[in-house]
């Protein structure tokens, strides 16, 4: 069948202090990314950005961004991510870099990866915990994050969504 296939880039915004993350908006990321693609890839890159790219999801607390682009040009957008050094948000410049965690063919695969990734991060946080109460918190968080929510969604749908899952390791 003929339809537009897309690639979802799951990225993480890494900042030196987490408080500056709170005011992040998806428009900020979009404009910064557009400027970076224009600098790195010129008029050709700007045109490709205009047709296919949109910031689908942004979590200001954890700094997770989901960027959607066309399947043919996702590498171009991905390469421009490394040129982003600061995000400008209402006159404030926040020093940061965007780290790409995962490339997926659908939002669902990115969601599954994110759950697994978060669980790994929590495992890594466990030895760093100083008090017992923190350790209990972390253990409870690890046990609570599961793929059951995602599996329920899959059971509901008829499985007609068969995007090719472009699972690539970063």
């Amino acid at each position, binding site marked *: 069948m003929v339809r537009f296939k897309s690639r979802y880039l799951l990225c993480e915004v890494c900042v030196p202090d987490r408080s500056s993350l709170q005011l992040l908006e998806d428009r900020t990321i979009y404009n910064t990314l557009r400027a970076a693609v*224009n*600098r*790195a*890839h*010129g*008029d*050709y*890159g700007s045109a490709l950005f205009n047709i296919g790219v949109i910031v689908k999801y942004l979590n200001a607390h954890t700094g997770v961004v989901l960027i959607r682009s066309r399947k043919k040009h996702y590498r171009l957008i991905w*390469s421009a991510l490394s040129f982003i050094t600061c995000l400008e948000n209402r006159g404030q410049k926040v020093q940061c870099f965007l780290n790409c965690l995962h490339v997926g063919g659908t939002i669902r695969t990115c969601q599954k990866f994110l759950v697994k990734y978060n669980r790994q991060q929590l495992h890594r946080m466990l030895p760093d915990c100083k008090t017992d109460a923190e350790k209990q918190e972390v253990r409870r968080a690890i046990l609570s994050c599961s793929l059951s929510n995602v599996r329920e969604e899959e059971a509901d749908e008829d499985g007609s969504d068969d995007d090719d899952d472009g699972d690539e390791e970063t």
Partner: protein
Amino acid sequence: MEEPSKFERYVYKNASVYHYMKISLVLENGNKYITDAQFKQLIICGLKDLYGEVGASFPFDLLKFDQNELTGILRVYNSGLVKLWSALTLLGSYQNEACAFRVTQVSPFLLALSGNSRELRFGDQLIW
């Protein structure tokens, strides 16, 4: 009896790593004094406008440059031919003056650029 001479034909795909382009710069107000470095810089600016920093960093060489005629021979890798050619097509101005690049010949072999049927001159008598 002699054997009939065999005819063999070799067909190469991607025989050469490079492509060679013979180009000439045409300015609106007649010829200016342009050095070879300025010529190459002009082409790099054109690449930068269209393809950004990544495009402008693509390596190409100016092999020969004729300052009187403003013609030159460029050498570029196969993967960059389309980008270079499109950047040359869309280049419009040099120091606020209208200009155009004319691409005379493109070939994967440098030897092919030495003979050009556009500049062919017949002798006085055509022998049939």
